[in-house]
């Protein structure tokens, strides 16, 4: 039986781990390799690094971060943020990442998912989907709209429909980030998580809102997710990954201990 995964998310800006709240304001936390090693030793199942750097120098720095992380940990990790071409995907995969996460560029240019899947296999292509609660309408029947550019720009796309389309185009996993609950640590958005988990046949990672171990348990049971992403709750030392997984196991969730 596949274990439910606990994935630690690290935002990287100019080569440093950083954490923001609701996409507003960021605090630099330290060297990504130190964080990677710490979470590897704590039993994280996977890591994901998002490059939130705006500058070209920062991007070059990020590939170097990927290379250094790959030498330090022996679990899979994904990278995302600003990846807009197959060549860029190749650069980070060659540097040692297992997967690339495509978010806004996949919305603007959906063929990117297909091109990535053809070049590297579906398993390498994660769709990053930011969803925001809106009144249900004919165009957005699920009541969750896809938003891009860190939540600033609505797209008019229905989150569930986009998840299905991305699967058909070659995405191998979906990382669903609920904008409304991101960074506030009050629990994942279980409604949209469940809707998407039921709508696609590829694994779904719940993201946005993890604050306590029971939130992760809810995401992978009630929410139907295959994995849950954590950031703040481990970065600030409130919990270790091991402690989270121990509580999930005690609640009957199959996790790797």
């Amino acid at each position: 039986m596949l274990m439910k995964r606990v994935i630690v998310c690290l935002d990287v800006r100019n080569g440093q781990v950083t954490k923001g709240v609701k996409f507003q304001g960021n605090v630099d936390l330290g060297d990504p390799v130190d964080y990677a090693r710490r979470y590897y030793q704590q039993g994280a199942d996977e890591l994901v690094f998002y490059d939130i750097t705006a500058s070209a120098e920062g991007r070059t720095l990020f590939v170097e971060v990927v290379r250094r992380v790959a030498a330090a940990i022996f679990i899979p990790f994904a990278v995302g943020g600003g990846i807009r071409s197959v060549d860029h995907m190749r650069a980070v995969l060659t540097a040692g990442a297992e997967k690339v996460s495509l978010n806004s560029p996949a919305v603007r240019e959906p063929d990117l998912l297909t091109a990535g899947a053809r070049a590297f296999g579906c398993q390498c292509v994660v769709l990053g989907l930011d969803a925001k609660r809106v009144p249900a309408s004919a165009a957005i029947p699920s009541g969750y709209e896809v938003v891009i550019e860190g939540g600033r720009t609505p797209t008019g796309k229905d989150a569930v429909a986009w998840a299905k389309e991305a699967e058909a185009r070659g995405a191998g996993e979906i990382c669903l980030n609920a904008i409304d609950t991101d960074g506030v640590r009050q629990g994942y958005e279980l409604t949209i998580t469940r809707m998407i988990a039921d709508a696609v046949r590829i694994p779904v990672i719940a993201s946005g809102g993890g604050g306590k171990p029971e939130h992760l348990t809810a995401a992978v049971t009630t929410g139907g997710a295959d994995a849950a992403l954590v950031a703040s709750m481990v970065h600030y030392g409130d919990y270790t990954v091991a402690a989270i997984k121990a509580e999930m196991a005690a609640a009957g969730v199959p996790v790797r201990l």
Partner: protein
Amino acid sequence: MIGVVDYGLGNLHSVLKALAHHGAAAELVATPAAVAGCSRLILPGVGAFADGMRGLRERGLDEALVAFAASGRPLAGICLGAQLLATTGEEFGTHVGLGIIPGRVVRIPAEAVKVPHVGWNRLVAPVGRSWSGTPLVGTVAGTWAYFVHSYHVVPDDPQDVLAVTSHGPHTITAAVGRGAITGFQFHPEKSGQAGLAMLRLFLGESL
């Protein structure tokens, strides 16, 4: 010399880093002569079966690998590399493989489960199969390994199945083995300390 086969596909970096972690000086090998000069060989790879075979053939590495395996030197395939050891692959049409471990590469049945099979799952030996003398010898049954795949190897001879894992109601081949040949369907280089131990044993070191 320990060689890691470079045939234009795959996460070579991760394998090299995992070997370097053991202080093993592995080199990328991309020619038949370089393959022939190795004492141990790792065939990594991610991607589609046909692309993998094309990459090997274009470099004349297919025959070199068959000859290497026949010489009795240790050879390990990882993920797609494990699948290429089989006779045929059924991903996007039927394609001829290396035929080093007779068998077929077939899609994981989709009933009641998600495919690709992505994540951590437990390794178990098939009934009557011993891990003695294989890179899994130090592995405790039930140990977790990291998988990412949609196809798996079904060897003609069930004795060539070294380890299995359960995905919903399905039993999936997790590793194949025959003599000095091992095919890891999971990624030992991404399976934490347990995976690193398997690589160390493959390198002929003790735990």
